[in-house]
């Protein structure tokens, strides 16, 4: 039998081995993904500091004569807040290091992608990354670094400083890419990003030297997101258990360190007292004692033991509800249970300390948008007592609680303040500028939640005008990122394709565009590559409602348009046929002169169509 060895791998190594999961499967895809990661980081940084973004992207071939795939220098520069010099090496030289771990909407999560791009560049070209950062409007720091993959640590090759006057960040990597294949997607990406980020100015200089410039369309930034507490619909049993653990108190282990702590809090460093005296002293100072100390004092009182005695046993359970303490006696190797005297003054103290908050307090303190009235109504609905201590709840009760949290309908909708939708006006302006349509309408749905994560759907529809009549086209965005790959399996496409467009007077290959933007603290992507959104029922419902609303608006426009077309058609028909009828009837009736039919042509074109 061969001997197996077990070894831990670093996050860098893990991602190196699984790089195709993160969108680095080939030179084409990798170039595109790298562009995305850096541009998104730059936009996120500007959003966070409320700076109107100015993004410069450039891709240059190292040797233009070579054929693809070849080495490219990719540089992304922004006017964001920059990164303090001391954080730069870790931020760009360590996998899973980032500032985006809170519960709020951002384009990227965890800062994973940018480091992946750097890692990919290093693997394919063995060239370092160059980061220039200015965070204080005075000094710009330039780092040239490599990643130590095994140790998940940055290796700084060069660090220089220069004077500067503006904040900002510039990242430049050398990587193997295939621009001839990735080019169209990258150009689409940049142009579509400008559509969903109308407050940004973007410039893209491609390897052929061509420059694409997208000026700012709106000058106001959408309100930034804030970090928030979870919504009750968005938690499961495991999440509740974790939240309770934060709230209620673990039985402290009694070791020398703990004994020292107790002595210190009671002011007993110098002298030693009998257990009885110690308890009396504790009573007097109770309000100043920390929670673990209170717990241990109360236990000593009920078990009637000193420190030595406490160290010979292990407390297994403090069941306040049943007034029982269960412990394991190491000396006797057996389990004991004793009654707690509910008359004792320690009982209440222990109960409060051990069991944590009441259910009512837990609900109002730990969840967003739950007030005492709603909390009480909920308790009634869940058939749980509001004064019930959450620490004393049984497994079954926790399951019931989690279940009821999902089913209770009277919670307010999730707080969308952690989300940053673009807003109807900027979206509408972006669409008008981008497509120059004959008709456009946008709508932002109210916030909703799936599995505890709030989300907002924004959607726009545009018809005619500058849009080519080549059939329905869908522009998908998630957290202000254009989604360009894997269109077929996306939930938005599914919803759009399920629509019976003929009901909305849309036929054939219409000049029709749908812009869909999903904002969430966590977009339910199907893959790590972040290109297609999974079909969660809550999300499907919101998308469908938004689309139906917009389609109805379009139908109104179409029937107005249709009525105008119809009137024109009528006028043409009467102008064509009435003179013919006149001619035939004149000969048929044997008359010489034609009748005066002019008025009839006019009347014909004015008749309201009877249906």
């Amino acid at each position: 039998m061969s001997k197996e060895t077990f070894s831990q791998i670093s996050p860098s190594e893990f991602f190196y081995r699984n790089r195709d999961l993160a969108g680095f499967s080939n030179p084409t895809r990798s170039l595109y993904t790298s562009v995305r990661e850096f541009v998104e980081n730059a936009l996120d940084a500007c959003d966070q500091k409320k700076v109107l973004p100015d993004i410069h992207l450039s891709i240059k071939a190292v040797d233009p004569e070579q054929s693809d795939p070849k080495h490219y220098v990719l540089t992304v520069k922004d006017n964001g807040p920059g990164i303090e010099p001391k954080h730069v090496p870790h931020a760009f030289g360590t996998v899973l290091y980032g500032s985006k771990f809170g519960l709020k909407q951002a384009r990227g999560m965890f800062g994973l992608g940018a480091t992946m791009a750097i890692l990919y560049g290093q693997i394919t070209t063995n060239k370092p990354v160059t980061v220039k950062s200015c965070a204080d409007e005075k000094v710009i720091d330039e780092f040239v670094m490599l990643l130590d993959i095994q140790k998940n640590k940055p290796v700084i090759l060069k660090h220089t400083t220069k004077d500067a006057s503006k904040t900002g960040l510039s990242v430049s990597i050398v990587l193997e890419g295939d621009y001839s294949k990735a080019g169209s997607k990258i150009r689409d990406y940049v142009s579509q990003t400008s559509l969903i980020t109308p407050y940004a100015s973007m410039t893209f200089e491609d390897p052929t030297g061509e420059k694409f410039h997208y000026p700012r369309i709106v000058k106001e930034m959408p309100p930034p997101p804030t970090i928030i507490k979870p919504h009750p619909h968005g938690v499961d049993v495991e999440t509740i258990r974790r939240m309770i653990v934060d709230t209620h108190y673990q039985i402290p282990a009694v070791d020398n360190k703990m004994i020292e702590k107790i002595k210190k809090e009671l002011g007993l460093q110098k002298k030693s007292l009998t257990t009885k005296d110690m308890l009396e002293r504790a009573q007097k100072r109770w309000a100043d004692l920390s929670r673990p100390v209170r717990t241990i004092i109360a236990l000593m009182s009920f078990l009637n033991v000193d420190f030595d005695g406490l160290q010979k046993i292990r407390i297994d359970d403090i069941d306040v509800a049943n007034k029982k303490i269960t412990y394991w006696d190491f000396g006797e190797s057996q389990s004991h249970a004793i009654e707690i005297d509910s008359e004792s003054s320690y009982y209440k103290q222990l109960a409060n300390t051990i069991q944590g908050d009441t259910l009512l307090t837990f609900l109002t303190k730990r969840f967003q948008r739950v007030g005492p009235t709603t909390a009480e109504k909920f308790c009634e609905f869940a058939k749980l007592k509001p004064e019930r201590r959450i620490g004393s709840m049984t497994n079954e009760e926790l399951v019931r609680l989690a279940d009821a949290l999902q089913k209770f309908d009277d919670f307010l909708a999730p707080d969308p303040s952690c989300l940053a939708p673009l807003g109807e006006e900027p979206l509408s302006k972006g669409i008008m500028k981008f497509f120059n349509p004959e008709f456009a309408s946008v709508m932002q749905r109210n916030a909703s939640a799936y599995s505890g994560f709030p989300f907002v759907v924004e959607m726009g529809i545009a018809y005619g005008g500058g849009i080519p009549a080549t059939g329905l086209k869908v522009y998908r965005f998630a957290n202000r990122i254009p989604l360009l790959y894997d269109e077929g399996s996306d939930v938005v496409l599914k919803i759009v394709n399920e629509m019976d467009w003929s009901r909305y007077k849309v036929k054939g290959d219409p000049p029709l565009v749908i812009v869909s933007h999903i904002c969430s603290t966590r977009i339910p992507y199907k893959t790590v590559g972040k290109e297609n959104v999974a079909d969660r029922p809550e999300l499907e419902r919101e998308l469908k409602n938004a689309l139906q609303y917009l389609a109805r608006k379009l139908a109104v426009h179409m029937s107005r348009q249709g009525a105008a077309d119809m009137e024109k058609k009528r006028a043409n028909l009467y102008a064509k046929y009435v003179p013919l009828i006149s001619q035939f009837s004149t000969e048929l009736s044997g008359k010489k002169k034609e009748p005066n039919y002019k008025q009839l042509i006019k009347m014909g074109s004015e008749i309201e169509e009877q249906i």
Partner: protein
Amino acid sequence: MKNKSNQRTAEAKKEKLLSLLQKHGLNIYDNLDQGKFPQFIIPSRSVNNIVYDKKLRQYILGNASAVRSSRNMSQLRSYTQLAWLAFFVNRLVREGKSSTLRDIYYSSQAFSIDFEDQPESDNIIVDLEAVTLSPREEFHIFPEERSSVFGDLTIEYTVPGYEGKRMNLSDHPDGYLIGPSLSSAELVDTSAELVIAIEKGGLFTRFVEEKVHKKFKSIIVDTAGQAPRSTRNLLRRLNQELGLPVVILADGDVYGEHIAMVIKSGSANAAHLRELTVPDAKWLGVWATDIEKYKLPTIPMTESDIKRIYDLQKDPRYQEGNWKKQLEVFLKLKRKAELEAFSKYGLTNITDKYLPAKLEESKSF
């Protein structure tokens, strides 16, 4: 004497039609002049409005009618087409010119009347028939001919340029096309005592070769499948004007039976017209019972054959007597026989054996 009166009837019919057309023309003219939308009222030819008249022994239209108005945008085009046709027919009849269904379709283009296809123009012709209650032959519009006649029958043309010219229909062995000239000709004289209508051109030629016209003193008519209206009209005139009995020979299947029925009592398609039926015509065969009786070679029926039997069983004319019985036997056999099946017993078997036998038998029904 008789010819004179016929001529007068034809002339009267023409005058009646022309004055009717002029009346319609005036009506349209006045409407236009007064700023009103003119309209036609057309007897409805929908299935619900076609009923079987037992007294007339044919299908007729009920009382329902439809309005075709120039006010309705979706009818404006077909209204104009109908007005054009009235105008065009007026010219045809006044000037004594003839036209065909296909010719009408092409003529329309000269007047910016765009028919999508010939069925559309054919349909407008039927509309005008219904509006004027006159057959298209009176409009001087005829189908492309395919049906012919042979036998000792003298006719006298009435068409312009041939007025008074006479002709005997046994002079040319291929037979004579039943076209506009023949249809409008007077039937002057005949030695025949019988008219035999036969479904197929091949057997028509055989009958001429075998001198059936002499052996049975008959006029032979090739219906070329379902008999066209001009042929049905000729058969009626031979029966009514010359007093000749009409017998029909068709294939031994459900379609053959119905060819005989349409000659006898008309079709639903022509329910708006009269004088196309020969109520006393007799269906000689081939009956379903003949298939067994004469041990004819058969082929199996198709599904559409069988469906057709079920359809006809709902028709009021097939509710009794031999018509009903033969349908039932066909349905039981689920096999059919062509007229040519008799060739199995020799090429002349049908004229030598079958025809005389059936004629003898027909005296009893």
